[in-house]
């Protein structure tokens, strides 16, 4: 196992490389207010991060990553375009796998630039590919933005599109919603009975709690409207299913997605962005002919990526998390900036895993 001193030295070297690429080194406190993360991820964050509290500041979290504080710092004081680098400990609660580290050093690189998103995506990926090149890792890429564009373009009710968007990062729930909206899963009997009832509240006990009878009635009205909405279009559904299965080298993936766009024309602008990114990656010296692209990649992690996503994996260490991950998170900046969006892309590396891999070789 590499020593802490080795890991810190490697982290410093990586940060130096990122500074030479134009990044400003930044620091963030280890203790972060928990509210922002709870707001973004809900209770799940408690299973993945260490929360603590005091009577004065309320709930605090040991930073599970740097992205959120760096975005907040940039929004408060940064000028554009901006590039940042950082390194330090992050803390991840582990409840299932005692072999996974609950504290490790991360080094990151983030780009805030609204002029050339494809160029910024390619810049980050190429920089990571360069510093990881000696390790012979497998790179995976994807683009959550294509799936989001497909959902936004479905010819169904706005309520259904919103429900699908809300669960885009929960693939199983997403699937269940599609089955419900397409009529593949019939509505539960209790719902059918509720909608058929002339007096839905007959025989129930008094109203208690903060969720009011009005809210219950509003949901019944929403269920009624949903029951009247036609099933999802079969052609769009099979196009969506085909989209989720695309797993190819980047240029072939784009070709398949162009075919799918015949039935899902809403994804065309996202595909144009993919095209621009592939060109920009090639211009940065990446062999795009050999680069894997999976349309479904990046959907199960809790991250906030909503466009380009990537990860670098060591096939010699199949049980370990990826050595590096990253992606585009425009929606996070919109959320944290109260609708003031700053397009942003970045990624993180684990110098400890890099050293372990080098020792194995």
């Amino acid at each position, binding site marked *: 196992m590499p020593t802490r001193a080795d890991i810190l030295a490697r982290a410093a070297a990586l940060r130096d490389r990122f500074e030479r690429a134009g990044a400003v080194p930044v620091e963030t406190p280890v203790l972060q207010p928990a509210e922002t993360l709870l707001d973004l991820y809900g209770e799940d964050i408690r299973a993945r991060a260490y929360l603590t509290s005091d009577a004065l500041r309320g709930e605090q979290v040991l930073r599970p990553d740097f992205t959120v504080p760096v975005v907040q710092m940039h929004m408060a004081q940064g000028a554009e375009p901006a590039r940042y680098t950082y390194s330090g400990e992050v803390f991840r609660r582990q409840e299932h796998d005692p072999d996974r580290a609950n504290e490790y050093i991360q080094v990151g690189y983030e780009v805030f630039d609204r002029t050339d998103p494809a160029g910024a995506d390619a810049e980050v990926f190429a920089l990571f590919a360069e510093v990881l090149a000696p390790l012979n890792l497998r790179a995976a890429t994807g683009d959550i933005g294509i799936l989001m564009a497909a959902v936004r373009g479905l010819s169904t009710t706005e309520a259904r599109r919103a429900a699908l968007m809300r669960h885009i990062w929960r693939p199983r729930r997403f699937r269940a919603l599609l089955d419900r909206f397409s009529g593949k899963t019939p509505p539960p009997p209790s719902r059918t009975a509720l909608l058929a009832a002339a007096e839905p509240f007959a025989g129930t006990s008094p109203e*208690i709690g903060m969720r009011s009878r009005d809210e219950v009635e509003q949901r019944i009205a*929403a269920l009624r409207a949903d029951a009247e909405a036609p099933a999802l279009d079969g052609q769009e559904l099979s196009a969506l299913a085909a989209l989720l299965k695309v797993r190819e080298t980047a240029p072939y993936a784009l070709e398949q997605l162009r075919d799918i766009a015949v039935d899902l024309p809403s994804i065309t602008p996202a595909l144009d962005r993919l095209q621009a990114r592939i060109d920009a990656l090639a211009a940065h010296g990446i062999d795009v002919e050999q680069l894997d692209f999976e349309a479904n990649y990046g959907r199960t992690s809790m991250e906030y990526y909503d466009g380009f996503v990537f990860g670098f994996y060591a096939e010699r260490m199949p049980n370990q998390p990826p050595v590096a991950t990253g992606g585009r998170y425009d929606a996070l900046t919109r959320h944290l900036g109260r609708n003031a969006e700053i397009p942003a892309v970045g990624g993180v590396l684990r110098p400890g895993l890099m050293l372990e891999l080098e020792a194995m070789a």
Partner: protein
Amino acid sequence: MTLKLGVPSKGRLMEKTFSWFEKRGVTLTRTGSDREYAGAVDGVQGVALVLLSAGEVPRELAAGRIHLGVTGTDLVHEKLPLWNSQVQEIAPLGFGHADLILAVPQFWVDVDTLDDLDAAASAFRAHHGFRLRIATKYHRLVREFLREAGVADYALVDSQGATEGTVKNETAEMIADITSTGETLRANHLKLLADGLILKSQATLWRSRVAPYPEEDQKALSILLEKIGAS
């Protein structure tokens, strides 16, 4: 060395545990004064009785400070994330039955399934500006269950007692709690979700997988297990 058997120190759970062992030829008794938590085991050589709170039994088993312990499935699953590798289930004892369930106000006629709950939570958050609150003391079990089910936009608020009353008091919108008959739920105008059963629990005898078992403890363990018909 002695083989240590941990048993709840109070109330019906203790009495029923004593009589369960008694029926199998192992007599557990409290010794000393009523207030002293000391006990004895007759019928098997080399076994010591440790009286402690049911809530502490999982921790003591996982630390290997006791070899055997009686407590509910709910407490083991809540407190030991890797319970399967830390403890072994020797025998369910057939009492202390309780289900960990999700319950919502009865007048929520629009909420019968987890699917409904997820949609209601989303609308609630949009309407009130905070996440739908679920009062419970079983944080880990509830969170994992809801994550598996893909329910979002809820918050767990801690409630160590009188949980059924939190909805009326407006400190939570719904609850996740242990129930045996559902009587208290009905009295508090709450109903079960159709697919909201998180765990079926009962008093169970567990063996620590991490405690040391020198030869004499091994022997005492196999004699005890044979007596209670669990060898």
